[in-house]
């Protein structure tokens, strides 16, 4: 079986990282290594999946790569935080599934790109606390103080891990897909050059149409058709095509 040069380059990173150790990124001094690479054709496009080990927890962070990214510049990049309820179950309490699908589709269609899938379920403290936050909401008790105590959230750590992952992939600059300009600065703090910000627009669908219908509440809670507040679990605001950013 022949291996194309792009796969060879990715596979070489596993060998290169075998003994990788660095002072680490961010307040947690997080360091990652590329430990495995494989082909991952998906319904959203033709991808390679790259698994990372890290020195802080037992979570395997993932890069979903399309095209030849090693050593490339201006690589379209999306950071996505794991959300089991949204990503897998298709929960409508958040828009994570829409955000992930849109990112994979867009990146699958262009020459090259990366989705960093950060395994920070419940924003750092686990799924159970996220469900506790939902339970508090169900009782009409959700407060900023309670949500922060439940672990919403350690953004800083996401950026440190993401920056290291991009460096490990040899990506020198990115076009970051985000609606949050702060994310650009945060990532640049860790030495990732963000040469452009690409708005992350979600196509309208029956589940997110209410955003368009209640566009006045840009910063506040969006209440969906079921009467539940829609949680912003990715650290960007949701922007639907046709909605002013």
């Amino acid at each position, binding site marked *: 079986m022949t291996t194309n040069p792009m796969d060879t380059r990715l596979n070489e990173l596993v060998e290169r990282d075998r003994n990788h150790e660095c002072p680490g990124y961010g307040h947690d001094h997080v360091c990652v290594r590329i430990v495995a690479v494989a082909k991952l054709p998906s319904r959203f496009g033709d991808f390679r999946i790259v698994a990372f080990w890290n020195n802080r927890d037992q979570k395997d962070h993932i890069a979903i790569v399309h095209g030849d990214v090693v050593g490339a510049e201006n690589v379209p990049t999306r950071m996505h935080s794991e959300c089991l309820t949204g990503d897998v179950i298709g929960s409508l309490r958040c828009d994570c599934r829409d955000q992930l699908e849109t990112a994979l589709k867009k990146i699958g269609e262009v020459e090259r790109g990366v989705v960093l899938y950060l395994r920070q379920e419940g924003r750092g*403290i686990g799924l159970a*606390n996220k469900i506790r936050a939902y339970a*508090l909401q169900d*009782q009409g*008790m959700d407060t900023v*103080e*309670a949500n*922060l*105590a439940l*672990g919403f959230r350690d953004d800083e750590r996401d950026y440190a891990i993401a920056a290291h992952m991009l460096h490990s992939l040899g990506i020198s600059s990115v076009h970051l897909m985000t609606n949050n300009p702060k994310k650009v600065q945060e990532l640049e703090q860790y030495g990732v050059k963000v040469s452009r910000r690409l708005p992350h627009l979600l196509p309208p669908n029956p589940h997110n149409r209410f955003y368009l219908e209640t566009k006045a509440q840009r910063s506040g809670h969006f209440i969906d058709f079921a009467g539940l507040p829609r949680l912003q679990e990715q650290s960007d605001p949701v922007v639907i095509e046709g909605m002013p950013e």
Partner: protein
Amino acid sequence: MQREVIVIGGGIAGLQCAKELQEAGRNVRVIERARGVGGRLATRRFEGQPIDFGPMFLHGHAEPFLRAVKDVDGVVMQSPWPRRIQGQGTPCQPDAFAPTEQRAIIPAGMNCFAKHLASGLQVQLNTRIERITADGNCFLLRSSADEEFQCQDLVVAMALEEILGMLGTMGAVPELAPTATLLGMFSSVPSLTLLAAYPLEVPAPDWDILYPEDSPSLQLVSQDSCKRLQPRFVTLVIQARPGWSRERLEQPEEAWSTQLLQEAAQHVGEWVLHPLWTSPHRWKFARVDRGNELSRPLLTPINGNLRLGLAGDVFSPGGGVQAAWLSGSALAQRLLNEE
């Protein structure tokens, strides 16, 4: 006017919180119901020999916590006890032996860490607070001996269920409703504990700590005397599993201590049945289980100008002594920075 702070609970969380507030120039008092500080980081003495019957050793990975531990007189951090671990059962904290964790013991007794934190603090012992009232511009605290205390910033640093009990004495405070609902979703686990002393002549085991994998009742047996520089007795500390403990919490001590001793004898040897001395202890709220922790302490404004802070082992990821210490430290910083 300087805001007065009172900390209820002289365990690790409360003491660290008080220490950082005092170092920042705040006027702080710690009120502790027991006759000594330390809370669950507990040490007893048998004929002068210390026996730790709460956490068996300290462990952690957070730099500031490890520095605080390093500061304690006589602390052992270089390949400390337990070196010889027996059995495949799980430790109370699954991470305790992870490569990221540093461990430590204190030969003079684990509660020396608490005494160290408390030195220089104003600590009032033997005082049980029975009622808290949030008055217009101060918290009013009343003790079981009818002593009264006042403060503008109140810290309650205890086991989760004890905090809920303390909040319960305040009656209906609208600002605290979400807090009570939130804390009601969490719980601690109990551990019935038995301390036993034997003459040095017994055939002491060749391990420091035993985690039996197949015992219905035993979580661990610790050979505490191996932590001491010149032990005059062999001492064992037997801690029971949470489920087994919960079923027996209301039973008389004699019943469960005899069962624990018999089960320990099965694993250690017949000699365990003949101690010189035993002492049972009921840890109703021994610790939090993994997945039952919050990420930070809670700070709630009440009546506009009062603040109620909550700290303890449940208020930091991971649980245990490190979490208690970190939560106390984080709460002090919030009280100082969110004015």
